[in-house]
């Protein structure tokens, strides 16, 4: 199977026009010592029927969360995706286009991104949002780097309750020395960022050299942080407040701007994007207008054409790598435009009321699930802290055995905190982490599913 339309005869004619006897002559610059003399050792080609069948078989080798009863969250969520989203995304004028560098024939992409930027501002309460980053983790890293540029400081204080994978990503980037990372420990008894005490946020900010405080709300454990207090501590120390948010919950929660956030980031996958084994996701990134020239990533703005019509264009590009090279605010070029388009379609489909309704539904179901699980007697609550639609409970027995048993009944029984922590412990007590299971419930879960799930837990 191939996608080359030129015929053998046409090839010959083209070679004559070029004036070389064979195609190999066009590769003359490749030194003989490195020229391949036989085809690559790859599996034999497939026709479309064979390929379709092969891919279907690979797909069938998986048991997707969307076909099980999914109580897994921890950074990727099983929300319903309205049908319109995929229909819009499947329009080839959107998905087969490049970055909108030629605005006269890219108004569709440009306007859709402008609308997406506006919606992210609406959700976060911030002044300006960029056209997207790769995912929540890299958006958080970019926020830390931007804070360092804005404050001309290098030390970053990262809450220990941020998703361990995001902390780990931040640490990888920090190895390069552009920012210096101080994580603070331990997690408080309430499953929150410790504010006081010897290792608390307050003491870490004492040196007056901190560029930013990074915090997630809801945090990795699903708990809602005291952004008001954290924001005040950060600002008193001259640091920026960077908040990672869940975009569904922003339908019903006060936006981070209320608490003085300077940069708001997050994982936008819940907004109409498939979980797709963790990627592509969508990093959203919003900040204050005063800092716009230090922002990473693309921005779309409004302008007019020579006839005076409203039009959209990539703007403030002098921040970007293709103009500023090593002085750019980031190396990002390709971002996640199609995922941002999905988010824009999703938010249009649900609207403010629908988003609030979905968020309320998630919160109600998660709280109901928690009560039912506690009522089984097999779980205990590590804390009583307000949460959104994800929470942690300690299991009395072996977590992996419990999850295996429930998987055989068709349930994805949450995420083991110790497993997700993996290479990057959050600093929570190890014995507690080994018992903790993170459960999420989205609007897709029904009361019947939750009741049955709790019954199965009792029967274990």
């Amino acid at each position, binding site marked *: 199977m*191939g996608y080359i339309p030129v015929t053998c005869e046409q090839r010959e004619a*083209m*070679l004559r*026009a*070029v004036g070389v006897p064979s195609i190999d*002559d*066009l*590769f003359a*610059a*490749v030194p003989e010592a490195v020229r*391949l003399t036989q*085809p*690559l050792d790859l599996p034999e080609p497939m026709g479309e029927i064979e*390929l379709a069948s092969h891919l279907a078989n*690979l797909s069938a080798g998986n048991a*997707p969360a969307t076909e099980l009863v999914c109580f*897994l969250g921890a950074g990727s969520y*099983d929300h319903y995706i*309205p049908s319109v989203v995929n229909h819009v995304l499947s329009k*080839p004028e959107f*998905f087969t*286009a*490049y970055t909108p560098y*030629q605005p*006269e024939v*890219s108004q569709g*992409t440009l306007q859709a991104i402008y609308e997406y*930027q*506006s919606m992210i501002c*609406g959700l976060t309460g911030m002044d300006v*949002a960029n056209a997207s980053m*790769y*995912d929540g*983790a*890299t958006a958080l890293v970019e926020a830390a780097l931007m804070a360092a540029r804005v404050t001309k400081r290098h030390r970053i204080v990262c809450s220990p309750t941020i998703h361990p994978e995001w902390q780990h990503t931040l640490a*990888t980037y920090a190895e390069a020395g*552009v920012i210096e990372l101080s994580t603070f420990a331990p997690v408080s008894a309430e499953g929150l960022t410790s504010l006081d005490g010897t290792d608390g946020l307050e003491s870490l900010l004492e040196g007056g050299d901190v560029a930013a405080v990074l915090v997630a709300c809801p945090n990795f454990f699903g708990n809602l942080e005291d952004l008001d207090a954290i924001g005040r501590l950060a600002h008193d120390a001259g640091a920026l407040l960077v908040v990672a948010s869940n975009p569904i919950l922003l339908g*019903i929660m*006060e936006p981070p701007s209320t608490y003085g956030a300077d940069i708001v980031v997050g994982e936008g996958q819940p907004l109409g994007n498939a979980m*797709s084994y*963790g990627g*592509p996701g969508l990093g959203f990134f919003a900040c204050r207008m005063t800092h716009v020239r230090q922002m990473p990533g693309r921005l779309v*703005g409004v*302008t007019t054409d*020579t006839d005076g019509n409203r*039009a959209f264009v990539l703007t403030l590009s002098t921040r970007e790598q*293709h103009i500023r090279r*090593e002085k750019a605010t980031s190396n990002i070029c*390709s*971002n996640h435009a199609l*995922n941002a388009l999905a988010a824009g379609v999703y938010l*249009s489909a*649900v*609207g403010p*009321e629908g988003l609030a309704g979905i968020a309320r539904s998630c*919160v*109600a*179901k998660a709280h109901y699930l928690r009560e039912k699980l506690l009522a089984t007697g097999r779980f205990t609550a590590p804390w009583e802290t307000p949460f959104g639609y994800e929470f942690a409970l300690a299991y009395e027995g072996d977590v992996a055995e419990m999850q295996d048993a429930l*998987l055989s009944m068709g349930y*994805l029984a949450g995420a083991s905190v110790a497993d997700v922590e993996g290479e990057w412990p959050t600093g929570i007590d190890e014995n507690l982490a080994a018992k903790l299971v993170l459960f999420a419930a989205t609007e897709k879960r029904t009361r019947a599913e939750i009741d049955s799930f709790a019954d199965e837990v009792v029967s274990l």
Partner: protein
Amino acid sequence: MTERLDHTPAVAPVRGPRALIFEVGSPESRCTEAPAIDVPLGKIDALLGGRARTAPPTLPNVTELEIMRHYAHLATMNFGVDSGMYPLGSCTMKYNPRINEDACRLPGFAGLHPYQPEETVQGALELMVGLADALGEISGLPGVTLQPAAGAHGELTALMVFRAAHTAAGNPRKKVIVPDTAHGTNPASVAMCGWEAVTIPSDERGLVDIDALKAALDTDVAAFMLTNPNTVGLFDPQILEITEAVHSVGAFAYCDGANMNAILGKARPGDMGFDALHINLHKTFSTPHGGGGPGSGPVCVTADLAPFLPGPLPVAFDSGGLGLGWPEYSIGRVRSFYGNFGVLVRAYAYIRALGGAGLTEVAEQAVLSANYLKSRLETAFEVPYGPTCMHEFVMSGERQKAENGVRTLDMAKRLLDYGFHPPTVYFPMLVHEALMIEPTETEPLSALDAFADAMLAIAEEAASDPELVKGAPYTTPVRRLDEAGAARNPDLRWRPAGE
């Protein structure tokens, strides 16, 4: 002014209002309603610890039909590969096979949660291992990570791997050398990795100035980054000498694989002495560009560097079955989860459709098509480097600028009136008034000829009626834009009246 149009415009002009989605619909309009809540619902503000919103977020209120009409309207104002030839140099705008789109949407792929137990994702892991193995064979560099989300992310990941290896050897070093033809992402990634970017000039042939390189090399140099074939469309014949010189000071040779499509099955970066390479799956392996992503930028490295790759990586267990594991000296994570899996599915499908011989044909036809276009255009335009090119070539609009006062930008805009997306313009920077043309192997000969005819017609227009070209485009949904005005008074979001 006469428009003189007897050809198909790039995008059919759309008349009528282009309302924002916020300006469509009414407060009562609804599309997807939230499901009824079938469990007890406490007071939300109490559940959220007093954090409930007092005012709803500003979002559109529209019906389903209004959404579909809105985006249908926006789509008509866009140009994609399906709309017509898109010879954007360095971007490889080839056809995106539709079976790949179907594949990534299969429920067994799209519906997978990243933390599902490994036994429930064996098909996904098998696909990832199959893709990683194929990329290792194609590149000649056996250590592969599929994690990076884009080419620039891949560059940065590879530089982090270099930094870890240098640090392990006792000296993290200070700088990275890039040629002046490098993509902007190269020096930007160097800066993010905490090194100084040192730019060296190209020689008069458009190749690495080997003396300048050797003069810049010392034991403070961590790496040399080279796009090969490079951004003027030339394969650097000095490649073995280059990588040997780089290695002689203990530095690493990095290949920016943006142009890997030109050498598939013809030569391998690993055999050329490169230590690491990123591959843009959205260029070489036909995954769609999505209007600016998502892409995917896997990194391939030598066996020596493989222990430093980011984790986790798909691995085969001795006990049978596949899982996720960590390289011994991993630099850590560079993102959440394991990669842009949906993009990996498409690239895997493409490689399995073509096989080894099919990939070689891709490179051969891409190079032949570029040379054919070049041969048709070099009489009317300056072509500074040659005599042959790889998958793309760079022309200069200097002649038209000097003789007619018509700039490359004007000719690019005029191409829109002829129904083509313009080539990359004003890059690479060492060529004045650059036009960088990459036809790709998927364009039929008729399209190549039509494009060449259009370019030649525009060259004639530049001579006979320069004002016509300078006023282009005429047929697009909007005309030329006030880009300076957009930057001077940034309007980056819609606000409701009165806010």
